[in-house]
């Protein structure tokens, strides 16, 4: 298979879905004439014109609410938030409106839209341009949450997200944008269903359940503990946070007896805590040692390289935690 970048994969998914369905349109800041701050929507205005790729003013509340309105009559807006941190600027429209709209209308309306953009640390963007927001999205019912780690998954999941009749938060990661990976040639269509995890590494001692950029860190950490300590980790890429494929996780824990959940949003009230809680609700008998979770330290991401590294729940922290767990 050819190799492509994560950005390119997303660009292709958008292009193919726009070709396939006239109701799909893109809306956001600098996405049209410029092609997106991160060039994710490059060339799409040229191909589809100003009625399919809409450059907005810096009005996240308004264009998010407009996406909702358009979606209720069957349009399929794909909204770009330049940084996922701006979720907070449009939070009322996202969580009080989009997530609740179908429910409040007793199922009379549906809201098929995608909110996409990049998040995450590692590039010294500081407190207001680096935070990972998946736990916030997952807290509110009514919105799907997808966070792919590879170009292949990014393309297949985004295509599915656009066709889904529910609102979907599609969370990209700035550290993944220039990573490369295999993907079928453009226009060779494939879809990946939401809510299906993927075992990326087989192992016997500890299950690491993770997604997005943390997957890459977890895979590296797994190599390290294997080489240096002979501990074998199984690494599960959740890919979708809502719905969460706990079945695949429990299957893995059935082998390993140990569960570590890792993500980049804050640990406190995060997806990791949720997975731990579910493990004790749904599969307590599988756990041979206490389940653990890792997330961002309880600080807003600092700019300084040294501090940012310390705050992020990456490789070293995963290694250290796995070692602690294996010792039990």
């Amino acid at each position, binding site marked *: 298979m050819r190799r492509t970048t994560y950005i390119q994969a997303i660009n292709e998914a958008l292009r193919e879905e726009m070709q396939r*369905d006239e*109701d799909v*349109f893109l809306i956001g800041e600098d996405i049209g004439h410029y092609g997106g701050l991160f060039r994710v929507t490059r060339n799409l205005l040229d191909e589809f014109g100003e*009625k*399919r790729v809409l450059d*907005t*003013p810096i*009005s996240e*509340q*308004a*264009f*998010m*609410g*407009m*996406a*909702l*309105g*358009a*979606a*209720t*009559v*069957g*349009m*399929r*807006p794909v909204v770009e938030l330049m940084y996922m941190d701006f979720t907070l600027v449009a939070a*009322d*429209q996202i969580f*009080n*409106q989009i997530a609740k*709209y*179908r*429910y*409040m*209308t*007793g*199922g*009379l*309306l*549906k809201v*098929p839209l995608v909110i996409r953009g990049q998040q995450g640390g590692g590039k010294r963007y500081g407190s207001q341009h680096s935070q990972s927001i998946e736990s916030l999205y997952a807290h509110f*019912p*009514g919105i*799907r949450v997808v966070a792919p780690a590879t170009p292949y998954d990014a393309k297949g999941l985004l295509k*599915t997200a656009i*066709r*889904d*009749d*529910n609102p979907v938060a599609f969370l990209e990661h700035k550290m993944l944008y220039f990573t490369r990976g295999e993907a079928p040639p453009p226009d060779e269509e494939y*879809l990946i*269903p*939401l809510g299906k995890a993927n075992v990326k590494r087989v192992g016997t001692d500890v299950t690491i359940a993770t997604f997005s950029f943390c997957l890459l860190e977890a895979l590296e950490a797994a190599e390290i503990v294997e080489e240096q300590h002979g501990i074998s980790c199984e690494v599960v890429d959740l890919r979708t946070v809502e719905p969460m494929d706990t079945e695949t996780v429990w299957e893995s824990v059935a082998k390993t007896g140990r569960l570590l959940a890792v993500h980049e949003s804050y640990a406190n009230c995060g997806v990791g805590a949720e997975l731990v809680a579910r493990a004790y609700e749904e599969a307590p008998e599988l756990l041979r040692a206490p389940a653990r979770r890792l997330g961002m330290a309880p600080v807003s991401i600092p700019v300084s390289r040294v501090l940012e590294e310390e705050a992020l729940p990456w490789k070293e922290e995963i290694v250290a935690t796995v070692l602690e767990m294996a010792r039990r």
Partner: protein
Amino acid sequence: MKPVKDANSAGIVARDALQSDSAAAAQPEESSAPASITTDVLPSDAAIDFDVPALPTEMLLEMYRKAVTIRLMENALLAAAEEGQIGGAMHTAIGHEANAIGAAFALRKGDYITCTYRGHHHGLAWGMDPGRAIAEVMGRSDGFAKGKGGSMHFVSPEHGMMGANGIVAAQVPHAAGLALASHLRGEDRVAITFFGDGALFQGVMHETFNIAAKWKLPLIFYCENNRYSEMTPIWRTSSIEDIFLFPRSYGMATMQIDGNDVEVVHAAVSLAAERARAGSGPTFIEGITYRLAGHMAGDLETYRPPEEVEKQEAYGPLAVLRAKLKSRGVDEESIAGIDEEVDDLVDEAVAFAEKSPWPDAAETYRDVFVEAATGDA
């Protein structure tokens, strides 16, 4: 014709820019109302300057029937709320009826509307069934949203009613999105969104003004200016002197009208809809109106003198409509006949709602997601 502040050739009211310094000088002290944005303006003093064609008597009769239906339903709901049959925050539209009715009759099937928690009048004006509406407010299974949305979330896509909202101004970009859909699809549908005077001070309003004006969306912003935001009169929280002039700065056409007069509302919305369908973009309409009941069920109305309400009652939508009908030669008896018919109809609607079963507890868990994972629109 109504008194006119002044006008430009396009038939839309215009006026000189606020002279910022003189405006500042005229500012009221915190506790005293200014001359212009005040609670004792009468709807009939609103500036308009366009032809208000006389509507056929038949249509006025239909409008009257709607107005009475809304009024009596609201009264019935207030009574039910007092009995504890309705919880939460229930906002009635008593006094606001004409804004919804005039607009509904001016628009077409296929057009869209979004509105606020004070949305019962829009629902009924747009054709929703009173029985199912009351059932919804009471949380019964025959409610249009199975009792999930309640009073603040009237919705009926088959009537173009695309949702009411509990968050002030949140419904405004929704309507802009509906207008956008129409625009992108090359349809001639128009969207209208209703909001209160208090909603002007939510940021999302402005964001939407700007985008709608820039993209020339087929959208009508309709402000039901009842001079109060909950218990606080508008002059206490803003220096804006004339709401209808304000959105001009975005490059939008605007008008100020008597929102209690169905014919005036009908004419204004017709004009705005015409502009929208012609591709001329959004129009902002300020309908001067008055809330003749409390902000919500249970409001003791300590913040306004009873005389203020009494005075406004005489200019209320029902008074205006009755006067119109009389001037068309409709006799008292015919009017009373409608009142009685509607009274029965609303009684029946209440009875229907009260007999409607409670929803199943299992219903709680439905409608969070569309179950089919993928699908076409």
